[in-house]
């Protein structure tokens, strides 16, 4: 157990030990979620503020369920995406958050780096629930948890991430979580949707790029398909969605190129028929619903580690044991 972080802004500098700590804690949380009454007391009296400045239902609800399962008080602040035009600056919102005195601020924002801005200016612990194209740490952690659950140790396992990597905070956070756990990542997708530097050989360690999805999937242990935003076609980055679907869409034939029973994942929401066929999305290898369930447990683990009652050692005791004493 090794936990000293005040915020969860990005996992790009996390050690394997820290990731293991969260994943172990997540396992304890899934136990709570399997009980008839899905509630434990460790965050009683703590306030979690959900600050979503960009539309999101899934992630917000997932955090809300996680906070409530740990008995925290939960409150919501919504704000317009590009607040500047609407007259309220992020700085204004931060001052409000600070005055409200929440223990944890869970935030989603359209601007990459916005959680750093907030963390610098508030006393609360900040959890990044997705910022621009930059990071979505809880998605990375829940994907790692889901993969480890399905495949066991990830050491040496090869995971394909296919789609719009350039604009994807999920891809970045998946890489930052899977690589320290020993996995290798193969990126695939249209050249216009992969960062130039990554195609030019300046890839993060353990990551490769293969434009041909069939080749990328050959012998892979798992695949994560990314959501394709329709506006990419309008902005000239794609010839057509139909071509995209034929060349980079996840079909049953393509999935068969991977190892037997290799997991198929997607962060949701899906464009069925574009980046993933319905048969694959709902097929036997799909872990997409499990990702959603595990998401709640991962978020409980992080809320607990950041705001759970500290023990004399300064580190929160495991949630399950706390539950037993309550």
């Amino acid at each position, binding site marked *: 157990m090794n936990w000293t972080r005040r915020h969860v802004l990005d996992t790009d500098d996390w050690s394997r030990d820290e990731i293991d700590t969260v994943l172990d804690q997540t396992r304890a949380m899934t136990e709570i979620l399997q009980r008839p009454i899905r509630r434990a007391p460790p965050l009683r009296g703590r306030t979690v503020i959900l600050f979503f400045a960009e539309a999101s239902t899934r992630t917000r609800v997932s955090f809300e369920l996680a906070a409530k399962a740990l008995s925290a008080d939960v409150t919501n602040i919504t704000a317009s995406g590009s607040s500047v035009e609407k007259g309220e*600056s992020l700085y204004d919102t931060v001052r409000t958050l600070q005055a409200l005195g929440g223990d944890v601020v869970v935030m989603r924002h359209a601007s990459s780096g916005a959680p750093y801005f907030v963390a610098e200016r508030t006393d609360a612990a900040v959890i990044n629930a997705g910022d621009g194209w930059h990071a979505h740490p809880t998605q990375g952690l829940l994907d790692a948890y889901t993969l480890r659950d399905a495949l066991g140790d990830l050491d040496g396992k090869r995971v394909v991430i296919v789609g719009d990597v350039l604009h994807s905070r999920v891809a970045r956070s998946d890489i930052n979580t899977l690589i320290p756990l020993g996995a290798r990542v193969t990126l695939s997708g249209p050249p216009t949707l992969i960062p130039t530097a*990554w195609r030019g050989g300046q890839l993060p360690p353990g990551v490769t790029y293969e434009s041909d999805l069939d080749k990328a999937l050959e012998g892979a242990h798992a695949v994560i398909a990314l959501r394709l935003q329709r506006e990419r076609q309008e902005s000239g980055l794609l010839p057509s969605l139909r071509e995209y679907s034929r060349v980079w869409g996840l079909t049953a034939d393509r999935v068969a190129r991977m190892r037997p029973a290799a997991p198929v994942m997607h962060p949701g929401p899906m464009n069925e028929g574009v980046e993933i066929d319905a048969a694959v999305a709902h097929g036997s290898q799909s872990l997409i619903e499990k990702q959603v369930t595990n998401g709640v447990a991962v978020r409980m683990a992080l809320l607990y580690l950041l705001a759970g009652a500290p023990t004399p050692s300064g580190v929160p005791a495991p949630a399950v044991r706390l539950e037993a004493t309550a």
Partner: protein
Amino acid sequence: MSLDRRALEAKGYLVVPGFIDLHAHLREPGFEDSETIATGAKAALRGGFTTVCAMPNTEPAIDSPGLVAELISRAKAADGARVLPIAAITRGRKGRDLADLVELAAAGAVAFSDDGSPVEDGRLFRSALEYARVTGRPVIEHPQDLALSAKGVMHEGAVSARLGLPGMPAAAEETAVARDIALAKMTGGRLHLTHLSTAGSIELVRRAKAEGAPITCDVTPHHLAMTDDWVAGSRAFAWEVPDEALQGVPYESSTKVNPPLRGHADVRALWAGLADGTVDAIATDHAPHASVKKDLEFDQAAFGISGLETALALVLGGVRVHWAPIGAVINALTIGPARVLGMKLVDDDWIAIDRDAEWLVTADELSSKGKNTPLLGRTVIGRVVHVSLAGETKLGERREGNAEAVGRR
């Protein structure tokens, strides 16, 4: 040589001609919350600049002879560095119709520029260069292909890929430089390319100069000292080894500047250009902003670094590691920009530099209203201790004690 001057040299200070800045934003009229001519001209003196050229992207833009005259009279009243007005190339800097360039020159505009907005229309830019021949004034162009740079907010490379920020590729600058050079060659008009930031741009200028094209260029102190790693939180100069003590918070909007801070190879290429004379001048692109324009999400914040007062310390850092000789750097701050403007140095404009003075950059330490520099909290080395403007001491050492501005508010 005056007694003053000899006494300062005897103390070990470097006495050189007053610096000339080809590129500063003084924000007046229109954006006086960010800077005024008075505060900007004062900041210039503290940075060793006895002459500073004011960019016309004010509100209104300086695009008529009356506005040029108004600026000149306000500058006289400001009692800081000598301020020379640059006039807009196009009316309202809108890139559609040429301003009255001949009359603007007659009114005292020393150059023309739509800085901040490149002149996208090649035909219009050709006309501007043809007129530049007639007026004898250079056209100062901010080379950037706006379609290529799109919504970019930093240099496109490995760092932007990691931070998930939209990038501006080096090619967005280089394709514009190539176009501008072709038009300068065709027209014979004097083209000055400002704040070049990429290795490719420097190489294009080097070749064009070898062919005798009528072009000059400048680079900024921040592009000479900082890389795109600064956006990711590094505060190590390009010549320093990055280490944890120099690691700050990522996404600080003080590192957001256009053109963006580039890669290490680009920085080295700018220095090589300085050393071999490809680069004619070091210009600050001093871009002060009120905090409301900078205390924002990175992608929402304004571009620009407040640079007049830290320019010298930044470039001396590269000199210390022998990336260019001190003579090349001083020339690029004095005779280089004077030649770009077709002027001679003023004998009575001179400054004294303490090359070893360490100082901490803080908001209070800066005279400029713009506190927007990623150097806040960093110690830098090298400082101007005396400024003489037209023979008059504007900043100097009291008989005893520290350097102090004379006649400070």
